[in-house]
């Protein structure tokens, strides 16, 4: 198996918690993985992205070649479009619908949705609304991961196990909330089929 995933968003939105969950799941499943990101700046608000590669064979490049990504997971709709050249023709684009508007020239959101809908396989999720319903706004990232999970070639249970590892120290309540967020995200995608 192999899953090449691009994560994108805005600095401070916490795409790294998605990366950490996938990465932990991969390692716990005995898979190879590489996760590359450019970071090191404290200031927030710039665009950020990360390349995640999971495979049952050793992985050569830290970077996903253009046109080879299986999935793009974006926590922000405009950022979903920035790396579109990396998505393979039948790859999936899964994005949060809620814009993060911190620039003076943020485009018309309808134009962005229009562009997203040009991608053959796309899912637009209102992850913030789902997270709000669950009374845990901060797990909207995990909702996104849940929404993308049907297209990641990994055992779904392994993500739950990873969430237990990552959030275990913060108490069972937080673990449960995140697992619920993961399930709700997945349900949303499956209901779209």
């Amino acid at each position, binding site marked *: 198996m192999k899953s090449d995933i691009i994560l994108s968003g805005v600095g401070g939105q916490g795409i790294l918690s998605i990366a950490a969950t996938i990465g932990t799941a991969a390692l716990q499943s005995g898979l190879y993985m590489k996760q590359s990101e450019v970071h*090191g700046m404290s200031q927030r608000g710039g665009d950020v992205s990360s390349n995640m590669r999971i495979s049952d*064979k050793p992985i050569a490049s*830290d970077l996903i070649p253009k046109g080879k990504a299986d999935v793009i997971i974006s926590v922000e709709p405009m950022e979903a*479009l920035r790396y579109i050249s990396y998505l393979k023709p039948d790859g999936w684009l899964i994005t949060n619908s809620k814009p993060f508007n911190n620039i003076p*020239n943020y485009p018309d959101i309808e134009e962005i949705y229009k562009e997203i809908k040009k991608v053959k396989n796309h899912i637009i999720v209102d992850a913030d609304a789902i997270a709000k319903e669950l009374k845990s706004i901060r797990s909207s990232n995990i909702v996104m991961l849940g929404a993308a999970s049907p297209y990641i070639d990994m055992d779904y249970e392994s993500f739950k196990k990873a969430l237990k590892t990552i959030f275990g120290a913060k108490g069972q309540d937080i673990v449960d909330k995140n697992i619920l967020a993961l399930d709700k995200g997945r349900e949303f995608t499956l209901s779209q089929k």
Partner: protein
Amino acid sequence: MDKLLLLGDEAIGQAAIDAGLSGVYAYPGTPSTEITEYIQKNKVAKEKGIHSEWAANEKTAMEAAIGMSYAGKRSMVCMKHVGLNVAADAFMNSAITGVNGGMLVVVADDPSMHSSQNEQDSRYFADFALIPILEPSNQQEAYDMIYDGFELSEKFNTPILVRITTRLAHSRAGILRKSPKEENKNSLPTNLKQFVLLPSIARKNYKVLIGNQVHFEKASEESTYNKYIDGKDKSLGIIAAGISYNYLLENYEDGNVPYPVVKIGQYPLPSDMIRKLYEECDEILILEDGYPFIENKMTGVLGDKKIKGRLTGDLPRDGELNPNHVAVALGLEKAKEDYVAEVIAPRPPALCPGCGHTDVFLALNEVMADYGPGRVFSDIGCYTLAALPPLNAINTCVDMGASIPMAKGAADAGMKHVVAFIGDSTFTHSGMTGLLDCVYEKTPITVIISDNDTTGMTGGQASHAEHVLHQICKGLGVEEEHIRSFIPLRKNHDEAVKILKEEIEYEGVSVIIPHRECVRTLERKNKMKIKAKKIN
């Protein structure tokens, strides 16, 4: 042992601890910062008392590492590529002294300038200093090279430069550790004059270094990090250095490259291996991230076979390599531009909402409007973002510490009302000597040290300047009544404008120290406090 999921930087930190390190010396700089941070946080390193405090700058870091090596222990010094410029004097001369305890100089280059002023290639520095280089192709190799590197350094009595790039530094992979080694015991150099670079001694040491070159090269020929991997198709031979080797493998199913390949991980270059490749193949393609270092060495020296690389346009002349560039050079795909939908707007990083620098700039912009544009000489830190809209407040950023001497030079040239804008950490890194020049000549200049109690740009490391800026300026000879301060908040705007105006009008050296903690650092500290409370 289970694999650890580590960044390339963290793998280096872990390897050094496992290899019997006694001290890491560093000044923060992306993408090298996480090496030292890893050692600072590591439990075993803490228990063993491995030195890991930040240094004031890369030069003091390098010198302390040389001192630790003198005392017989294993030391490591880490920096970003431009840091090596600052440390260059110590670095070049450490090649002449040689080492006692093993010493590794880890330098993180930043091709594509993700967060740097240039993309200089540190391999040239090691070549210049005549010392070996280790250049890992992946995170595991980074671990292994550091783990073995100290012994290599001790065996050959030389510092070794370990060259990494952003991609390797900031990418995570599973790492297999090796069993921990003991630290060296203290010991003096066998020859107590080894580190005395008087000309008479330096000449001898230099001859030893020159004599060692053949041994360095032999070690490269025999190194497990350099490999000749045969291939059936001799129409092309490939030299792949460091991380570019992965981009080559990426382009072939299961990494089965049809051409002969020389994989490079240790320098000086293994000439025999390269000569063999050159003789067997019709053309040579050179893959290296950074400058065309190997290509430059080969081109024009070895007969007239075609050598392809960054100089010939087969690969881009600048910027970070990637699997697609390599595929194009191999003729496997055509070069194509990225598709970027027209609706996408750029989203550059900006100063955080609530950042104190912004309040200083708002006041400064108001004052400078009276004097005309182009007078604010600045430096490197978060505040450099003020060069962009909406603030458009600064006119220069060249290298750390340059703001004050550049403003002085402009004042010497007759420019009036010049201002230098520098951060607290940059001031103690390399701003102090420039200020001393101004005091010495009574230059009419206003220096703003925007103090946020931290090294914000690189993630909020401790700053040597904390609580001592006023004293330092006074000690350097700035008149007490011209060392001013204010708290950069919206409500203090008028006070700030008044102070700035008064000091810019003063025809001598003034220092203004606006002081308010970085909001990110404050946030992190508060989070840690809450965490600590929960545990108690």
